[in-house]
C-alpha cells in the first residue's frame, strides 16, 4: 500500500495548458506567472480564475499598484471567459494599493491574511507582486515576504499565483526558488510577425512538457498549442497498418502502381511542378473517400483560394464530406495547425487528410518557425498518421533535368510514400508522367506512366515502352523498338 500523498491536479480551463503542465495544476501549489508587459499574464490569470473558482472554493484576486483595477475589469471583460455574474459570488477582487502604499510588507501580509480568513478562498492571485516588492525599501524582505505568503497560502489550502513583470528573459529572482511553479510567457517578434510562447520553467512534482509552446490570445481567451507528440499521444489508437485495409486513391491505375492502394495510416507526398495536377490528385483522394462514406479534412494553404479552382473539393465541403481548414491565417505555428487539424478530424471522425500545399504551408507559418520547418513537419505528419488517418501532402517541385529530385526541403524521408509527377517533351508537346518512388515496406510499381488531366480528373495511361530517357525530360525513341509498342525488348 502506498503512503504517498496524492496531489490533485486541477484543470486550468485554458485549452492545451493542462497537457503542457503535465496533467493540470497541482492543488495548493504556489506559482509565479512571469513575463514582460503585454505577454498575457493577467489574461492567463483571469482565464484560470473564472474556470476554477466556485462559490464553495472562491478566488480572491488581489490587485497591487500595477494595472489600475478599473481598467483591468474593463479590458478583461472583452474576453469570452469573463463572467460578471461570478463577481462577488465565486470571484472576489480586492485592491491592496492603500496597504501597499504604506511601504510595510508586514501590513500587506496582515491584510491578505485577514481577507483570506474572511473569504476562505481556494485560489489567490496577487497582481502584481513585483510592483509590490519594488515599492519596498529593503530588498532583503522580498524573499521573506514571498516565502511567508507561500507558506500561509499552502496552510490555508489555497492554490496561489503571483503575477510579476520581468523585463529580461534572463532575469533571475530569488523568489523562483521559493515558488512551486514558474509559468513564463514570452513574445518573439521577427519582421512584422509576433509569436506568443509559454514555458513551464518549473512545476514541482510533475512531468511538464519542456520547451516553448506557442499560444494565441483570441476573443475566447488563451489557447495553448501543445507539441505534436503530446497531442498524438492523446489520439485514438488505429489498426495496425501492416495488416489493415488499403486506401484507394480513387484513380484507376494509380492504386495498382501503389501495389493495391495506400496502406491506411500512411502519409503520401505528391510532388510535381506547377500545373502537373497535384491538387487534382488530392481532390480525387477525398472524393473517393466520400464515395466510400469516409470523411476528410482539407487544409488549404494556397495563396489563391484553392476552392475557386477546385470545384470537386468545394462540392465535397459544401456537402459536409470534407472539413476545411483555411490555413491563410497570419503567423501560424505548426502546433496550432496540428491542433486545428486534430479538432476537425475528431469532429468529423475523418480518415483522410490533405495538406495542399507544403510550399503554401511554409509561407503561412510565422517566419520564426520556418527555420525548423522540416523538423516540425516531421512531428506534424507523425502525429497525424499516429491517429490512423491517411495523409496526402502536395509539394511544388521544380522540374530539373540535370538531377533527379523527389521533394523539396529534403522532406522525402518524412512520408511513407512518394509520387512524383514530371513534364516530358514528346513530339513537341508537353506530356505528363508520374511514378511511385516509394511505398514504405510495400512492393509497388516502378513504372513511369503517362497520365492526362481531363474534365473527370486524372487518367493514367500505359507506360511509354517505346521511349527512353523520360527523366531527362526529352525522351527519345528506343532504337530496338521495331515491333509495335507494348511488346518490349525481345527475350
Amino acid at each position, binding site marked *: 500500500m502506498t503512503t504517498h500523498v496524492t496531489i490533485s491536479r486541477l484543470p486550468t480551463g485554458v485549452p492545451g495548458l493542462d497537457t503542457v503542465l503535465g496533467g493540470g495544476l497541482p492543488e495548493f501549489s504556489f506559482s509565479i506567472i512571469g513575463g514582460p508587459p503585454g505577454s498575457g499574464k493577467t489574461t492567463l490569470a483571469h482565464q484560470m480564475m473564472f474556470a476554477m473558482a466556485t462559490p464553495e472554493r472562491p478566488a480572491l484576486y488581489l490587485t497591487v499598484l500595477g494595472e489600475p*483595477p*478599473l481598467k483591468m*475589469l*474593463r479590458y478583461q*471583460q472583452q474576453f469570452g471567459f469573463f463572467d460578471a455574474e461570478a*463577481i462577488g459570488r465565486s470571484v472576489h*477582487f480586492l*485592491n491592496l494599493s492603500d496597504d501597499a502604499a504604506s511601504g510595510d510588507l508586514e501590513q500587506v501580509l496582515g491584510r491578505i491574511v485577514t481577507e483570506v480568513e474572511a473569504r476562505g478562498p481556494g485560489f489567490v492571485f496577487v497582481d502584481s507582486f513585483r510592483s509590490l516588492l519594488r515599492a519596498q525599501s529593503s530588498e532583503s524582505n522580498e524573499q521573506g515576504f514571498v516565502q511567508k505568503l507561500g507558506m500561509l497560502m499552502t496552510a490555508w489550502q489555497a492554490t496561489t499565483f503571483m503575477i510579476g513583470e520581468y523585463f529580461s528573459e534572463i532575469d533571475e529572482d530569488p523568489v523562483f526558488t521559493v515558488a512551486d511553479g514558474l509559468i513564463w510567457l514570452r513574445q518573439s517578434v521577427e519582421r512584422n510577425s509576433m509569436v506568443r510562447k509559454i514555458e513551464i520553467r518549473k512545476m514541482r512534482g510533475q512531468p511538464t512538457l519542456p520547451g516553448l509552446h506557442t499560444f494565441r490570445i483570441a476573443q475566447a481567451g488563451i489557447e495553448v498549442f501543445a507539441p505534436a507528440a503530446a497531442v498524438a499521444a492523446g489520439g485514438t489508437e488505429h489498426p495496425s497498418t501492416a495488416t489493415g485495409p488499403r486506401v484507394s486513391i480513387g484513380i484507376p491505375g494509380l492504386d495498382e502502381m501503389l501495389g493495391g492502394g495506400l496502406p491506411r495510416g500512411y502519409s503520401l507526398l505528391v510532388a510535381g511542378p506547377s500545373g502537373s495536377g497535384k491538387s487534382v490528385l488530392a481532390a480525387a483522394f477525398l472524393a473517393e473517400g466520400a464515395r466510400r462514406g469516409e470523411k476528410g479534412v482539407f487544409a488549404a494553404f494556397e495563396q489563391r483560394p484553392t476552392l475557386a479552382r477546385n470545384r470537386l473539393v468545394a462540392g465535397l465541403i459544401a456537402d459536409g464530406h470534407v472539413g476545411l481548414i483555411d490555413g491563410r491565417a497570419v503567423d501560424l505555428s505548426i502546433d496550432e495547425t496540428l491542433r486545428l487539424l486534430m479538432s476537425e478530424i475528431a469532429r468529423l471522425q475523418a480518415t483522410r487528410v490533405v495538406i495542399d500545399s507544403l510550399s503554401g504551408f511554409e509561407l503561412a507559418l510565422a517566419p520564426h518557425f520556418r527555420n525548423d520547418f522540416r523538423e516540425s513537419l516531421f512531428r506534424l505528419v507523425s502525429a497525424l498518421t499516429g491517429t490512423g488517418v491517411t495523409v496526402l501532402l502536395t509539394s511544388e517541385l521544380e522540374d530539373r533535368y540535370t538531377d533527379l529530385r523527389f521533394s523539396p526541403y529534403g522532406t522525402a524521408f518524412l512520408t511513407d510514400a512518394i509520387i512524383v509527377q514530371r513534364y516530358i517533351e514528346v513530339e513537341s508537346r508537353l506530356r505528363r508522367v508520374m511514378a511511385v518512388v516509394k511505398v514504405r515496406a510495400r512492393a509497388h510499381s516502378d513504372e513511369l506512366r503517362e497520365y492526362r488531366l481531363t474534365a473527370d480528373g486524372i487518367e493514367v495511361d500505359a507506360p511509354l515502352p517505346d521511349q527512353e530517357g523520360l527523366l531527362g525530360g526529352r525522351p527519345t525513341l528506343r532504337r530496338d523498338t521495331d515491333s509495335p509498342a507494348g511488346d518490349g525488348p525481345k527475350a
Partner: protein
Amino acid sequence: MTNQERPAVAEALARLAGGGADATRVADAVAATWQQIESALTPIIGAHGVTALYRRSLHLTLRAHPWLADDPADDPLAMNLGTLRAALAGRSADDAVAAGDTLLQTFHDLLASLIGAPLSRRLLHFMWPPFEPAADIRPTPS
C-alpha cells in the same frame, strides 16, 4: 435610458422629498448612499479609483447644478462628502433631490461606460430593486 436601467436610489430620494422630508434629510440620504458606494467599490478598484470617478461625476453634474461646486479649500484628491452634504442641505428639498439624483445617475453611467452595465449593476446592487433603503433614506412616518 429606460426606467428599468435606472438605479432605484433616485426614486427613493424622490419618495423622500414627496413624503415631506427637508433638504437636510435628502442630503443625509445622498451622503449615506455615497458611503455605501465607497465601501462597495474601494476594495475592488481602490480608494483612488472611487475618488477619481466621484470627482468626474461631480464635474459633469456641475453643468446642471453649479452650486454643488467644491469648497476651494477642499482636497482635490478626496471625496469631500461633508461639502456635498452641506451644499445639498443648503438648498430646497426639490433642488437637493434633483442634484443628488443627477450626481448618482452620472456616477452609475460613468462606471457602466467603463466596466459595462451588468458588472456595474452587480457591484452596486444595493442601488437597484429590490431596493432596501439605508436607515438614513427611509422616510419617517408622520
